């Protein structure tokens, strides 16, 4: 079209390797959470009764709602990429913003749940929790560290998508160059997958 457009064409680009790089990063995340899931599985195996009792204090409604919220945010994330592929910049921005808002709703629900736990005295180091059986202390310790780490990932994901929205507005992400948006999407979906496992493991112990 003009000189600027020409210059862009000659910049070296390899979208497949870019996505591969993102996947490699996601594997390091898998190691991080994998280790925590291993710890969880061993302690649950050793304290089955206590884990079951402690999990009864979870708010299943909010947990299920948050699962649906995160799944829906994954949908809007995927749709923002489709919109970009079709060259609909405005629609893509809309879906990105909706994804961030879903993430925010997830965090708000988490805060409601956690403040409930804190008011009940179920936080690591509290006197109420310390007086309970070891298995229940472990349950809440794992609950706060694993769900907390996941929540941190949701916050990071939200800010990454926020950057992508700015890139989209500034035309750094376009119909023929949206690999950044795809990478952000991969991260967001991984965070979703981790929650898919956290949900039954912490909320639904029979």
């Amino acid at each position: 079209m003009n000189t600027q457009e020409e210059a862009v064409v000659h910049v070296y680009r390899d979208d497949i390797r870019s996505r591969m790089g993102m996947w490699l990063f996601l594997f390091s995340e898998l190691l991080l959470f994998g280790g925590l899931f291993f710890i969880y599985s061993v302690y649950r195996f050793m304290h089955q009764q206590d884990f079951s009792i402690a999990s009864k204090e979870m708010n299943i409604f909010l947990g299920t709602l948050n699962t649906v919220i995160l799944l829906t945010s994954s949908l809007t994330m995927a749709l923002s990429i489709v919109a970009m592929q079709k060259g609909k910049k405005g629609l893509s921005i809309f879906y990105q913003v909706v994804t961030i808002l879903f993430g925010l709703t997830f965090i708000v629900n988490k805060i409601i749940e956690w403040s409930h736990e804190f008011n009940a005295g179920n936080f690591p180091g509290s006197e109420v929790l310390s007086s309970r059986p070891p298995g229940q202390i472990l349950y809440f310790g794992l609950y706060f560290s694993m769900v907390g780490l996941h929540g941190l990932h949701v916050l990071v994901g939200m800010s990454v998508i926020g950057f992508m929205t700015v890139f989209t507005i500034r035309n750094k992400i376009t119909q023929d160059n949206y690999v950044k948006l795809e990478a952000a999407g991969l991260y967001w979906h991984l965070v979703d997958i981790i929650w898919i496992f956290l949900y039954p493991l912490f909320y639904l112990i029979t």
Partner: protein
Amino acid sequence: MEKIKLQDKHTHGYGIYVLVWLALVALTGLTAAVAGINFGKLSIVVALLIAVVKSYLVLTEFMHLKSEERTFKAFIFVALFFILISLTLLFSDYSFYVR
């Protein structure tokens, strides 16, 4: 011109994603409903099986693994394989641990 060749893969419509999302929400409902029934030791197996199916849907559809190069699939296979090995070794030890 070369730009267009770089990424012409995986352009689907919106429809498939909405379908996948519906399946994911339905499976979440199933997980919650099934948790009410006591299958004993099998409860955790059922819950994890549903989680695996959900993850598979997210990986293949949302994360576009379906249309990605074979290398990506090999990566994931290797990663999951080693997680499985670690888990097997872990429990081959802890299954004999005093309660």
